[in-house]
């Protein structure tokens, strides 16, 4: 599977077919999930209507973690096998993951104000997610910090692998420390503690977010590949289409 897609030309062909399907699927699933979770799902007996923020917050948090894992795995593949697409995939995914992390932090803050009485609390879960956001920013800054793009890519891959120590800290912070943030209630031993009337729209939203990520990822990867192609063509002296083609001058003189 991986080696089949390793060829950028084949990747462009397959992703070109998949792109509109992924885009429309994520639009449909997200529309369904938003109506279901924001209108149809029952209000919580304690939190009232503000529980609806959770339908955005929780999938965004899942995506923030999963996308970082994706960036780290893609970076490892890029470092070990010098896979031509893995580095592009990692670099294309990082800003999307940073955006999911920011959505997670912002919605959590909006929910915390009425529920906890504070926009921000320095508890272990919140702090470690903030660190995740800074790891994303550090990765993006490092990748773009070098004149030689391949050097930035490899340095970024190493940083992504170093930063992976933060993932278990985030996941288990609510178990290791006594936090204000509630412990895991969906993926836990003994089954979820959420009623099906809320769990199902939550999963619909999660699937919608995952599809959105896949669509944005392919879109950004295709853009990056096209940019590289354009740069290579310019290096080889093929002029931009807008510029007039210079008068032919024999190369052998």
């Amino acid at each position, binding site marked *: 599977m991986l080696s089949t897609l390793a060829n950028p030309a084949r990747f462009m062909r397959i992703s070109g077919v998949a792109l509109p399907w992924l885009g429309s699927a994520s639009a449909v699933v997200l529309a369904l999930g938003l109506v279901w979770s924001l209108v149809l799902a029952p209000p919580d007996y304690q939190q009232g209507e503000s529980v609806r923020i959770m339908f955005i917050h929780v999938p965004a948090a899942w995506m923030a973690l999963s996308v970082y894992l994706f960036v780290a795995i893609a970076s490892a593949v890029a470092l070990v096998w010098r896979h031509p697409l893995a580095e592009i995939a990692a670099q294309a995914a990082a800003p999307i993951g940073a955006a999911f992390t920011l959505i997670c932090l912002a919605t959590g803050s909006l929910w915390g104000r009425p529920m906890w009485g504070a926009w921000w609390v320095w508890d272990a879960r919140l*702090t470690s997610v903030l*660190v995740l956001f*800074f*790891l994303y*920013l*550090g990765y993006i*800054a*490092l990748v773009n*910090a*070098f*004149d030689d793009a391949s*050097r930035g890519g*490899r*340095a970024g891959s*190493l*940083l992504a*692998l*170093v*930063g992976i120590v*933060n993932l278990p800290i985030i996941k288990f912070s609510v178990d290791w420390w006594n936090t204000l943030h509630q412990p895991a209630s969906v993926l836990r031993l003994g089954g979820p503690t959420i009623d099906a009337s809320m769990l199902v729209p939550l999963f619909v939203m999660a699937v919608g977010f995952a599809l959105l990520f896949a669509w944005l990822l392919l879109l950004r990867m295709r853009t990056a590949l096209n940019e590289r192609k354009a740069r290579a063509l310019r290096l080889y002296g093929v002029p931009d289409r807008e510029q007039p083609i210079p008068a032919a001058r024999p190369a052998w003189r």
Partner: protein
Amino acid sequence: MHPFLGLIRHDLRLAGRQGGDIGLVLGFFVLAVILFPFGIGPEPELLRRVAAGIIWVAALLAAVLSLDRLFAADYADGGLDLIALSAMPLELAVLAKGAAHWLTTGLPLVVVSPVLALFVDLDPAALPSLVLGLLLGTPAMSLIGAIAAALSLGARRPGVLLTLLVLPLYLPPLIFGTAAVEASLSAEGARAHLLLLAALTLAALPLAPLAAAAALRQALD
């Protein structure tokens, strides 16, 4: 002499002859701590409450300040290529560099910290856990800093980048270091937090040179 010790001695001698770097780091540390009473007011109760945090944050920033010269000078004059070509594994060279960095920045900070504790009115009972915490935590900061310093070699604005890379990774020593001081004043005792700090340093001791050496190889390619 083993090249490992030779590299440490070389770095120490350079730091000793140039002199300015150790002074700069220490001066920054002292000034940063002294600025806080001006900023938050001189009430002893307030200062005592935040004393450990002030000292730890100032130590952390002082350590960041000195990171960019960990490999940069050797990278610029080509010495790093010679080190990489030598028979000694690059991981060991990174460890030597990190050790020299700790001896010239971390250790002086630890030595000065009891004096600074007086300025911010730290509870004398908490002093041992502060000094011991810094002693256990600063080697981890030098080692983790070596990864970031190696990654940002040759970048366009290494200073800002280095700070962004290293600060998230410095949070665990900061958290456990200040928690140790806090806990030493309660019935809980600082032991657990100090053990965690030691664990951080022991984990960074083999892992950080691996990552930093990999980053150096990328930089020297």
